[in-house]
Each structure stands twice: as C-alpha cells, then as structure tokens.
C-alpha cells in the first residue's frame, strides 16, 4: 500500500500537466506548438544539448583514457579532479563565470558551463569501463596485426561504448532540464522560456504546453538510455576480466602535452569557478553583509532539504524493499512509476504542482510542504535506488533463517532487513539531501514568500548583477553541501572496511 501511494505521488505531476495543457482545448495547444518561436526553441535547446553532449563525450572519454591507460605523473590526483566538478551546481559555476566574464552570456557561456559541470557523467563510467576491460582482447587484436590506434578504435572503444552512451544520455537529460546555468547565462533554452512565460503572463497554458514538449523529449531520451542499458548487459556478460590493463608509457613530449590538457580541463572546470568565487568573497567582505539573512537562508536550506530527504526515504523504503525482493509485474510497474521523476525537469514538476495546488491543495499553495513534495517527486528515484541496492546486498538466506526461527515477515523486515540496510539507506538519504540543497528551479517557483534558500538568493542576486552580494551565499552553499558529501565518503570508506573483514 505505501508503495502504491509513492508511485501515485510520483505520477501525479505528469498527469496533471496533461490536464492543464489541454485546458484551452487541444486546438490551442496544437496552434501554439506550430508557431515558429516554438520550433526555434526546440532547435535551440536541442542544439545546446547536442553540443554539450558531444563535448562531454570527447572530454570524458579522453580524460578516462588518459587517467586509466597512460603512465601519468599524479594519476590519482587527476582522477579525483576529473570527478570533482559533479559537486558544483551548474548555477554556481555559471555565477562564477559570468561574474568574471559578463561577455560570455549566451550560447557559448551556457555550453561552456554545462560541459564543465557534466563531463564527469561520461568520465566516471568510461574510466570504470576502461579499467575493467580485459587486456587480453587488445593483445589479441595487436597480435592479429592491428596498430595500437586501430586497436583502440576497433576493440577498446567498442567495449566501453555502452558505458559512454549511458553517460552521454545522462548529460543530455541534465542539459535539457538545467535551469540555473541557462537562466544566468541568459540563453533562451526550454526551461528558461517556460520560466519567463510562467512569470510574464497570467495565461499559464503556454507554459504547460511547453513543459509537456520538454517532458516528451526527456522521456524519449530516458527510454533511449534504458534501451542502451539493455544492450550493455550483453556486452558485460563476456567480460570476465582477470587482469587489469597495464598503463602505457608515452614519450616525454607527449606526456607533457597530456599533462597540459589535464591542467587546462581542471582550470576551466574547477580553477576559474573557485578563483572567481574567492575573488568575490574578498570583494564582498568589504560590503555590509546581512548575517541574519544569510543564516536564515542557510537554515531554510537545511530544513527544506532535510525534510525532502526524510520524505523520500520514508516513501522509498516500501518500494525499494519490494523491488529488491519480489520481481512481479505489479512491483515492476510501481518501481518504474517512481522513476518518473528521473525524466521530469525540476521546473516542470514545480509547474505541475503549482497547477495542482491552485485547484486542489490551496492551503499548501506556495508553502513549504509543496517544495518538499517537489523534492520527493524529483529525487525519489535516487532514494529508491539506494534502498533497493542496500536491501539487495543482504542475502535472502539470512531472512529465511529469521523466518524459520519464528519471526513473521514484518518482524523479519524490522529486525533483520532494515537494520542491515540502514547504512546504505542513510547514505541514500544524505545523497538526496545534498541534491535537494542544490535544487534551484522547483525551489524558486514553489518557495513561500519570505523564506529563501541559499540557492535562490545566489540566483536572484546574480540575475541582477550583484556578484559581490551573491558570493557569501555561494560560499555557504558549497560549505553546507560539503557536510553530507564528507559524511558520504566517510561512511562508504567505513563500509569498505567492514566488508574486508567479513569473509
């Protein structure tokens, strides 16, 4: 029952969006879609998406090859640095860049910032796949007369293709649903246009129609990702990698050139944003800082994201336990329903909740519970994944033993399954909390007047060009977000420790 409730909540926004878009009749919606401005918008958004995705694939695969297959000074450091940009919200990076170089605004700036923020989505799976592939395959190709470059192209790249594809699709989804970077870079992508059309007019049907178009595109991309994952299974089946690939040594000149490339990527993705942030903090220190407002925003951020994480986990536990233990059709449908949020951009979820709230949930309209509901819809997939993975980790044998010792199914859940899954679930909660803290568009649209989060303050101050005033909020956000991140990496290290002890 609770699992079904979670699934319904996750599907609610999507359903309501359809109702709302058809409010003025299907004719209006179709007329609106046929406008030139609409098709231009679709082309613009897809253009940005394709550009960023291609750039991320090139950058991500390149870095993955460099850090896993080449003898490079400070390899471990480069691996960490290459993954780090994931921790920086796109609007923080956009803030840092536009405050340093206002002329970047537009397509170029949006593409630069989004590439710098999202290439780890390709880098991480590509690097993992590269270090897993069996070197015997490559050796066989070489012994059959292929040059190293031919071998790389025809053997190695083929093996990591599914990993790269799933990463690239994540990037595409991210770019389509990103609001912070495109709005700060003043590039009229889907999310930005939906936001202005919602803010600018009393007629909200166009916003709903555009949201639906965006959802259709993201769902198409998600389905593409699912299909590519299905193929990936077959790919991995034969890869019983007994050995790890040995990194190749390069000539001194080439090594230096590679190092130069690594430094450049790190500078663009991390160096410039951090330097710019540091500059504005120093500049801002001379200004009068409204400490109480900063503290208030910090507290609101913590409360909202904490409640969001709690809500997600409470709803995710029944779904995750069911998904890990029972693979019936009904369970699969419930699980897939909760994954709707995965394909829904934050701004769309926010709009759907607003439409729903004005009609049926007036008391909650633009109140905190609405923000939390948006967080739950958006991040339930992550929480379900965490619960499911940690429940699947413990053996069903252990649960059977508990049953044979006289415990009821519910008793087993309470005394065995959940205590065992607790560390993983807690890590999932921390991850969701971190994601909630960084969430911008839904929070921006739904937050109650007068209580603002750090992300909202940062965004609105940057929009009006008050870069120095925005700096403390950016710094506070990064610091607060570091807390769950630190706890996460600490917890996962501890878990590794205990796993080593048990045989």
């Amino acid at each position, binding site marked *: 029952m609770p699992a079904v409730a979670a699934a319904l909540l996750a599907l609610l926004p999507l359903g309501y969006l359809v109702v709302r878009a058809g409010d003025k009749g299907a004719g209006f919606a179709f007329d609106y879609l046929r406008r030139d401005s609409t098709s231009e918008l679709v082309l613009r958004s897809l253009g940005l998406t394709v550009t960023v995705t291609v750039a991320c694939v090139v950058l991500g695969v390149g870095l993955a090859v460099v850090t896993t297959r080449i003898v490079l000074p400070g390899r471990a450091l480069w691996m960490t640095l290459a993954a780090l940009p994931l921790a920086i919200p796109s609007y923080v990076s956009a803030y840092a860049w536009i405050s340093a170089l206002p002329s970047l605004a537009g397509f170029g700036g949006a593409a630069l910032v989004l590439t710098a923020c999202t290439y780890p989505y390709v880098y991480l799976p590509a690097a993992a796949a590269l270090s897993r592939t069996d070197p015997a395959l490559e050796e066989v190709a070489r012994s059959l007369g292929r040059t190293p470059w031919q071998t790389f192209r025809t053997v190695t790249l083929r093996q990591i293709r599914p990993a790269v594809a799933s990463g690239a699709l994540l990037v595409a989804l991210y770019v389509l649903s990103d609001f912070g970077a495109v709005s700060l870079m003043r590039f009229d992508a889907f999310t930005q246009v939906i936001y202005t059309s919602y803010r600018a007019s009393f007629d909200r049907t166009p916003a709903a129609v555009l949201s639906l178009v965006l959802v259709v595109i993201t769902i198409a991309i998600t389905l593409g990702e699912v299909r590519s994952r299905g193929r990936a299974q077959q790919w991995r089946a034969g890869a019983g990698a007994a050995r790890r690939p040995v990194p190749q040594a390069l000539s001194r000149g080439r090594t230096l050139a590679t190092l130069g490339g690594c430094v450049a990527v790190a500078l663009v993705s991390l160096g410039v944003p951090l330097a710019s942030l540091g500059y504005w903090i120093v500049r801002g220190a001379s200004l009068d800082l409204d400490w109480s407002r900063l503290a208030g925003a910090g507290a609101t951020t913590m409360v909202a994201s904490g409640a969001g994480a709690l809500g997600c986990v409470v709803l995710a536990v029944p779904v995750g336990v069911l998904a890990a233990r029972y693979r019936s059709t009904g369970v699969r449908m419930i699980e897939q329903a909760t994954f709707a949020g995965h394909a829904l951009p934050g701004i769309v979820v926010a709009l759907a909740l607003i439409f729903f709230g004005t009609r049926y949930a007036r008391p909650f309209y633009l109140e905190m519970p609405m923000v939390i509901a948006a967080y739950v819809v958006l991040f339930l997939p992550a929480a379900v994944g965490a619960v499911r993975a940690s429940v699947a980790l413990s053996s069903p044998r252990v649960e059977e033993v508990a*049953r044979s010792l006289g415990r009821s199914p519910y008793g087993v859940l309470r005394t065995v399954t959940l205590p065992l899954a607790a560390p993983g679930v807690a890590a999932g909660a921390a991850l969701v909390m971190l994601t909630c803290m960084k969430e911008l568009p839904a929070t921006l649209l739904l937050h109650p007047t007068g209580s603002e989060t750090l992300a909202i303050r940062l965004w609105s101050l940057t929009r009006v060009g008050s870069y120095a005033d925005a700096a403390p909020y950016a710094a506070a956000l990064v610091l607060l977000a570091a807390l769950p991140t630190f706890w996460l990496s600490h917890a996962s290290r501890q878990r590794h420790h205990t796993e080593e002890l048990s045989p």
Partner: protein
Amino acid sequence: MSRLQVKALDKSFGSQAVLRGLDLEVASGSLTAVLGPSGCGKTTLLRLVAGFDRADSGEIRLGDAVVAAPGRHTPPEKRQVTVVPQEGALFPHLDVTANVVFGVDRARRRAGHRVVELLELVGMGGLGGRMPSELSGGQQQRVALARALAPDPQLILLDEPFAALDAGLRLSLRVEVAAALRLAGATALLVTHDQEEALSTADSVAVMADGVIRQHASPLEVYHQPVDLGVARFVGEAVELAAVADGPYATTALGRHRLPMSACGAGVVVLRPEQLAVGANGVSATVVEERFFGTSTVLTLRLAGSSDVVRARTTGNHPIGTTVKLQVLGPVVFFAI
C-alpha cells in the same frame, strides 16, 4: 515414531521437474543424511520442508501436524523447523549471543536462556560478544548450529553446512556437529553430496537421485547392499564384474559368490575395492596401474583369462607388470541386466 514424514512430494520449476513423488521419513531424535549428486533436488526438498517454497503436490508432516498439503502451507515461522545454511548466514548486525537467542521468545530469554551452555556445546564458549565478521568460517558454522538449536525446534535442517570449509576443518567439525546434535537430542536432516560425510555422520542415509529417494537405510546397508547400480556407484567406489547368476550363487571371473538374494541370468556383481584381497590365494591378475595414497595403495588389475579390469585397495609395493593373486572377501550384490 517419525518426526518428519514426506509423502509423494512434487515440485517443478517451469518445465523442469525437480522432485517427482518423493517419500521420506526421519525418525525422532535421529540424524538423517540426504545424499545425492549436485542438482538432484536435495536443496529443493530442504526448502520445502522449511516452508521457504511451496510444493506442487504431496504432503509434509511434522510430528502430528500436516504443514504442507494441497491448499495448505504453514509459514516457516510457525513450523519450528530451523536451518543451518551452507554459508552460515549469521545476522551480520548482531553479535554471537544475539544471533543465538534470535529465535528464542522474550519470556524464555528473560528466564535466562541456556545461551552459554549452547555456545559451550558447539565449542564457542566465551565468544558470545564477537561479531560475525570477526569469526572464521568454521566458527560461523558453529554459531549457526547453536542458533538453530536454541529454540528447541522439532527439526533442524543442515544444508551442506561444511561444504565451504577446507578439508581438515570439515572433518573435525562434522564429528563435533554430529556429537552436539546427539547431545542435544535433536532430530536433524543433513543434506550433502559428500558420501564420506553422509556415511560417517548420519544414523541413516537417504540416497537421492532424479527427484526421488532411491534407498533409505543405515550407512552400512546403503554401502554394502545398494538397491541398484546407480546407488552402488554413487555411495562409494564400485568394482563391477560381469556375472551369471543361478539361484543363490553368481559366477564371475573371480569365482563363485554367495548372493544375499537368489537371482537368475546375466548381470553385474558389485563389490567394494577393499573386498578384494591381494595375497597368496585366488585368481591371477596383472598390475596395470599402481597409485599410492599414503594409507593405502590402489591397484588397477587385469584378471587372467578375462577382459575384466578391477581396482583393489591394498598396502605394500606392487610394481606395474607383476602378477598377484586376488580373492573376494565378504558378501557381494548382484544386479540383473
């Protein structure tokens, strides 16, 4: 009185029939081994008895109660049947004591359950505070046994509990486990594919193949009087000789042998390698192969005047090519072909 009674049990997975009308009885207070090759359905049987899975048809009785029958399924927690799984499956978040008392109800726990005594019984005295991750594989199995004994169950099921351990430990632990089970007066069903383990630890051995119990008897009887050639081959090494039976006797290249039951016609005589005595009397045979195992030597021999090749367990040095004399000791069994 039999504690467990299984009647005409059927179980299929998809189109694959795993149990085909299986019958089995386990006497109260006994340790019965179900012996069979991998994939013969032993573990399926055990899971049905425990109540983890449902049978397609057939009946399972525990004491006087029917726990599984068509349209009837007592859930595992109501059966008072505990299990010792292959990998122990200790609760990793609980210490040894908490693991052992897991199945003991609160009232008895408060009344001072005999945890200490049980841990002593399985040789884990004083280790109640350890976590499962701090125990060796053998220790984990001991705790799993104590945990299964703690609620005084009707029946304990042991699913290849020693398979994951190394050879030396396996030997000593199975002796100790059998002793602990007898001391506790428990009724136990041990599932294994290891002949030696079944024969040496159990009071009775049920040989299973193709989803049915082929023979259920004492270890000695199963070993020396197998009901068919399949059982004979599976329970231990078998020496097979072409034979012709005429009433109470059968004739082979090694002479005339008295049969436990009269038979007629062509067939096979089966005996065990240690029943072939290498000595001064008997039929001549040439050594084809000699393999030394430390405590004994196994000779492969070709019998004079026949194409039969046999194996004999003996001691001493018999180089390849030498001729020895062979004599059959003890009873043999005959299977008509």
